[in-house]
C-alpha cells in the first residue's frame, strides 16, 4: 500500500530568502549571536534562541566535515546511483550543510575533500535546487541569475510504502468473505459479537476467540446522505452511507445503501447485502457491493437502541 501527500508549507522570513536565493543559484547563511555563520540558515539562534535576521551569502564550494557512502540509494534521495552523504562546511560558513556528493566511487570520498554545488537544471526555490555536490575539478557551478520572484511556499511530495499484515481474526473474516460468509467473533467475557472481528474485545480487553457466522441482513441504525463530490468517489451523489447492524452482531458495519431513493432510508430500515457476481469474489470486503432494502417491516427502535 502506498500513501502519499504533497506537503505545501509556507516559509518564514529567513527560509523565504534562503529559498529565493536558491532559485537564483546562490546559497545564503545567517550570522548567529556568537558571530558564527550557519549555512543553511537557522531561524533561531542555537545559543540564545533569539530570531536571526542577518543573512550573508556563502560560497558554492566547501569542505566535507564527515561522510558516509550509500551503495543502494533509497527512493527520493538526491541521486539514484551510489553516492556519499556528507556534512559540508561551505566557504564562509562555520557550520555544515547536509547533502549528497556525487563522487562516483567510495574511494573518492574523504574527510576534508573539497566539493562544489551542482545546481538542478530548473531551480524553483526548494532545497532540491541543489541537485547534489560534486568533487571540485570539472566545470564551475552554473552562474547566478536574477529576476526571481520571492519564494514564499515550498511543496514536498512525500510517499511511503507499507505492507499491512492482517491479524489472525481479520484473516479468518476475509477468507470467510471469499466463500460468501460473514464471520464475526464472540467475546468470551461479555458475550458481545464483533464483525469484523477485532482481536480484542474493546470493552473487556480480552482476545475474542469463538467464531460466529452471521446472516447477510440487518438493520440500519443510523445513516447520512453524501451530497459532496470528492476525488475517487465511486457513485455520483447524493447517496447513503449507513451503519448496518447485522442480525446477531453487537457492532454495526458501515456500508452503502442503494436500491432506493436516499430520502427513503431511515433508522430501523431492514436491509440485505447485495453480493457481487461470485466469479468476482476474493478475500476482500468488496465482495458485498452494497446493501438494499429487504422489504421486511422496520425493526423496532428498542431492538437496536443499545447499538447506536
Amino acid at each position, binding site marked *: 500500500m502506498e500513501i502519499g501527500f504533497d506537503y505545501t508549507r509556507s516559509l518564514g522570513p529567513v527560509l523565504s530568502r534562503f529559498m529565493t536565493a536558491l532559485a537564483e543559484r546562490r546559497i545564503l547563511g545567517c550570522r548567529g549571536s556568537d558571530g558564527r555563520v550557519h549555512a*543553511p540558515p537557522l531561524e533561531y539562534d542555537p545559543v540564545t534562541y533569539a530570531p536571526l535576521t542577518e543573512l550573508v551569502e556563502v560560497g558554492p564550494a566547501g569542505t566535507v566535515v564527515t*561522510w558516509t557512502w550509500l551503495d543502494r540509494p533509497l527512493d*527520493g534521495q538526491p541521486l539514484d546511483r551510489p553516492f556519499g552523504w556528507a556534512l559540508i562546511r561551505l566557504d564562509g560558513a562555520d557550520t555544515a550543510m*547536509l547533502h549528497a556528493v556525487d563522487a562516483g566511487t567510495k574511494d573518492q570520498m574523504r574527510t576534508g575533500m573539497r566539493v562544489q554545488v551542482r545546481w538542478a537544471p530548473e531551480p524553483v526555490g526548494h532545497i532540491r535546487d541543489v541537485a547534489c555536490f560534486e568533487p571540485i575539478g570539472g566545470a564551475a557551478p552554473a552562474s547566478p541569475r536574477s529576476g526571481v520572484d520571492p519564494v514564499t511556499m515550498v511543496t514536498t511530495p512525500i510517499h511511503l510504502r507499507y505492507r499491512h499484515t492482517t491479524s489472525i481474526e481479520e484473516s479468518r473474516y476475509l477468507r470467510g468473505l471469499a466463500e460468501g460468509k460473514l464471520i464475526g467473533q464472540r467475546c468470551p467475557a461479555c458475550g458481545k459479537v464483533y464483525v469484523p472481528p477485532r482481536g480484542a474485545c*474493546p470493552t473487556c480487553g480480552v482476545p475474542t476467540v469463538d467464531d460466529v457466522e452471521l446472516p447477510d441482513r440487518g438493520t440500519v441504525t443510523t445513516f447520512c446522505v453524501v451530497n459532496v463530490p470528492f476525488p475517487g468517489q465511486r457513485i455520483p451523489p447524493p447517496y447513503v452511507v449507513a451503519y448496518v447492524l447485522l442480525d446477531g452482531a453487537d457492532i454495526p458495519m458501515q456500508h452503502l445503501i442503494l436500491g432506493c431513493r436516499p430520502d427513503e432510508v431511515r433508522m430501523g430500515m431492514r436491509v440485505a447485502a447485495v453480493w457481487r457476481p461470485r466469479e468476482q469474489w476474493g478475500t476482500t470486503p468488496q465482495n458485498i457491493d452494497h446493501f438494499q432494502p429487504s422489504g421486511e417491516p422496520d425493526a423496532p427502535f428498542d431492538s437496536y437502541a443499545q447499538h447506536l
Partner: protein
Amino acid sequence: MIDVAVVGFAQSPCLPSAGTTSGVELLVPVFQEVLASTGLAKQDIDFWCSGSSDYLAGRAFSFVNAVDAIGAYPPVAESHVEMDAAWALYEAYVKLLTGEARTALVYGFGKSSAGQLRRVLALQLDPYLHAPLWPDSVSIAALQARAGLDAGRYTEREMAEVAARSRTAALGNPKAQVSGTDTADDLLAAPYVADPLRAHDCAPVGDGAAAVVLAAGDEARRLRARPAWITGFAHNVDSPALGVRDLTSVPSASAAATAAGLRGDEVDAVELHAPFSHQEILLATALGLGDAVRVNPSGGVLCGNPMFSAGLSRIGLAAEHVMSGRADRVAGHATSGPALQQNLVCVMEGA
C-alpha cells in the same frame, strides 16, 4: 512531595515481524503479564499513557485502535505521545507527582517492519532543509560514527567490541532478536552497510511492545517488596540542525543526566538506548559512567530495538534490577531523533 516508583514491567519478544500495525495482538499478552506481576486489575489503573507513531503504522490515529487492548470500559483516563513510550512514562510520572493519579500503566508499541524504517525515520527531520533529501537514519548515524572516528573518540574495533559484548549478553535475554558469540574480529570481517557502520553496528529492525506500571507512595509499597523508586527523571534536546551540532558529544544527554541527579560512578547498572554501537560509547562519556557500571546487561537495543517501546524497556529493564534486589541504584536512558538528538534519563533506587 509524592514518591513515585516503577512496580511492574513486561515486554513482548522483539521479532523481525510480529502482529499488525494496530498493536493489539502484541499488547494484550503484555498487559496481562504486567498486571499479573503487580496483582492489579485494569480497573485499578488510574491513568494510561502510550507512545507510538502513525508514520510507523502508515495510518492516522493508529494509537486509538490500540486502546482495544485495554478494554476501556468503563471509560479510562488515557493519553498518548507520538514518541518513544519513555516520554509517555515521563508524562505519567508528572501525573502521579500532581496527585491526580496513584497508579499508571504506560505502554509503547510499533511495527517497524511495516514500512522501510530507515526511510520512514527521515520524516522526523525538519521538513524544509533535511527531510526533502530523504537522508535515512542509518546514513545519518554513519555521519556521526565517522565524525567520532575522525576525532579519535573510538576505533572501529571498539565499536565492534560493543556489539560483541551486547550479543553475548543477549544470550541470557529471551526477548532479544539478535544474540551470539561472535568476537570483534568475526564482526570486523563483515562488509560495511554505511561506511563506517557494519550490520553489527546497527540495531536490527524489529516489532514489539512493552509496558511499565508506576505507583505512588504507599500504593507502591503495597504492590512490591522493593519498588524501584524514581529519584530523578529528566529529558533534554539538541538542535535539529544536524550541521550545527558537534556530533561527537551529546550535550542533551549530559544535561538530562545532570538534571536527573545521575552520578555515573554511583550506579550499579545502566540500560542505554544506543541504536548504533558508537552511540553507546558517546553516551557512556556523556553520562560520565564509571568503569564498574554494568552497561546494558540485557544486550541493549543492538540486540532488539522495537521502535517506540525500546526506550521504555530500558527503564523497565533497569527497574527490574532493583525490584529483584540485584542492584540498589540504576538508570534507564532513552533516545529519539537523528544521531542522539533527544535524550531522557531516569534514575531509580531500591531504598
